[in-house]
């Protein structure tokens, strides 16, 4: 088991390094003097010269990358050209807000998706099953930003149940979390339905039924547990995907997360922030995928 964990964890190191090379190289592809790009369009000549020294821009490219990587690992992501403050500090609070939003969205999608998937499998081919197909189709066809605007219109502007935008209280979290969590609901429902239909046909389920257990106990205690294993994978992968999709929910509800900050940084050509935010999100994504694999290995005795 420990070997499996170590082997899998070690495999993420080259991927993370590759991601850092990609981010480093992309920003260097922007036409113009990198010292100006990192110091900002309105920087004083002294600041430009200082930036040039700090980033080692007079040295070969690989040395510049080494400086970039060493500083990134130490938590130094440079200085925002817009605010003049360290990028790492600016990102941290917003990063936590994005994780909070993604966590709430996952909680929503599991709370809705798991029961829907169970009902669809147990009532296979009947009303609830067909309804779950429709919900799933709608879920994948309603992009986060559109669903967000619709929720805002109906539940906030018209009915006044939730605040329209902002992040002052837990009520502010509800609508962005639903708009971000709707897409995974569809995935979880369909996947759990399929895997539950499989385990409901297995021998151990028939045994449980044969010994006279009520159907609810057969489903919940015997068939559901193995069927949840593939769903765990989807939940983990969806959590990673949300780190990207959260940009849209944050834009609709002016949620002060890292995605909204990144889009603003792109608009203001604040490249140190772009670089830092992308790097942080990619690292989180890779780590989340690693965690999924490890949880999967732990849950599924066959891979142990």
């Amino acid at each position, binding site marked *: 088991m420990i070997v499996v964990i170590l082997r899998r964890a070690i495999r993420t190191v*080259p*991927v*993370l390094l*590759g*991601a850092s*090379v*990609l*981010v480093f190289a*992309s*920003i260097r*592809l*922007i036409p113009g003097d990198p010292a100006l790009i990192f110091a900002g369009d309105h920087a004083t000549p002294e600041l430009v010269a200082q930036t040039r020294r700090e980033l080692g821009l007079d040295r070969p490219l690989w040395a510049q990358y080494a400086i970039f990587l060493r500083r990134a690992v130490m938590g130094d992501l440079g200085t925002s050209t817009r605010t003049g403050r360290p990028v790492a500090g600016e990102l941290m609070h917003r990063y936590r807000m994005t994780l909070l939003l993604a966590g709430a969205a996952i909680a929503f999608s599991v709370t809705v998706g798991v029961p829907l998937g169970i009902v669809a499998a147990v009532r296979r081919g009947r009303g609830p099953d067909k309804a779950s197909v429709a919900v799933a*189709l*709608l879920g*994948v*066809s*309603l*992009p*986060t*930003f*559109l669903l967000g*605007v*619709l929720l*805002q*219109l109906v539940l906030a*502007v018209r009915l006044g149940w939730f605040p*329209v935008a902002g992040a002052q209280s837990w009520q502010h979290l509800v609508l962005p979390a639903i708009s971000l969590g709707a897409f995974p609901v569809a995935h979880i429902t369909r996947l759990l339905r399929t895997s539950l239909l499989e385990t409901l046909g297995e021998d151990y389920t028939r045994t449980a039924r044969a010994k006279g257990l009520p159907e609810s106990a057969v489903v919940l205690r015997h068939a559901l547990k193995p069927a949840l294993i593939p769903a765990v994978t989807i939940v983990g992968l969806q959590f*990673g*995907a*949300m*780190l*990207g*999709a959260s*940009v*849209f929910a944050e*834009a*609709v509800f002016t949620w002060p997360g890292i995605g909204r900050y*990144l*889009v603003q*940084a*792109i*608009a203001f050509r604040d*490249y140190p922030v*772009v670089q830092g935010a*992308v790097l942080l*999100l*990619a690292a989180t*994504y*890779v780590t989340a*995928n690693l965690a999924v694999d490890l949880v999967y290995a732990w849950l599924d005795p066959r891979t142990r």
Partner: protein
Amino acid sequence: MAVVAVPPPAPGPASRFWAQVRRDRAGVGGLVLFALVVAGAVAGPAVVPYDPRQPNLLAAFQPPSAAHLLGTDQLGRDLFSRVVAGARASLLGGLGALGVSLALGVPAGLVAGYAGGAWDDLLMGLVEVLMSFPGVLLALLAVAVLGAGQRNVVLAVGLASAPVFARLVRGSALALREQEFVVAARALGATPARVVVRHVLPGCVPPIVVTAVLRLGITIVTVAGLGFLGLGGDPATPEWGAMLSAGAEFLRAAPHIALAPGGAILLTVLSVNLFGDAVADALNPRVRARRG
């Protein structure tokens, strides 16, 4: 006169495919809806009642009426005209991004799968790195480098989707490489380029088609999403994502400004997904066997 019964020609794979798709009622509905969107994209600017770019502040914020089927927006532009004209940007955007990802991903997958060795390691290493980013994030990074604007958004979304096709085609090419007809072509002295193009690539087409039709919904949504974020450039150009974002400012007073482009996005993506599922089912031998 003797009548000779001529057996009808056996249906080719293409007509069998269409017969299969036709049997899927939801798929046909999706196709009809999608055809409407395509018609709007093709004929759009020529048939719409008003100039979609011309502001008319005296007519701003009008609700839907006989003169303005979907009402007017905050600058008094006719929303019906803008929605129809916007089909072009959204559809071309989604298809263009799909084209970019195919143009990048398919050759990379063919080379990696057929040549193997160092090429495979290099290309798949790159794919793994690209896949270590959530797709949207990769597209955002590309827009940051290329600059905002509709053309760059399409390029960025295409780039972000390319790894999917590279990985898919590599798998198919790897399996086909050892097939007898490919080995035979090699033994007859065909150049690697010829073997790949004439013998390996055709075998990769069905999975490419399935993935591409299922992917189109995603590329349309992502292009519209980046437009929603304000990265699509010129705000006068009718584009559904940017229109939705502008309309979201006026939800209280004039919700129709957001609902018109929002409905267009939903119907388009729904139609693409319904049709895509039908195509995927028709090309999937397991589903075909179950139905046939």
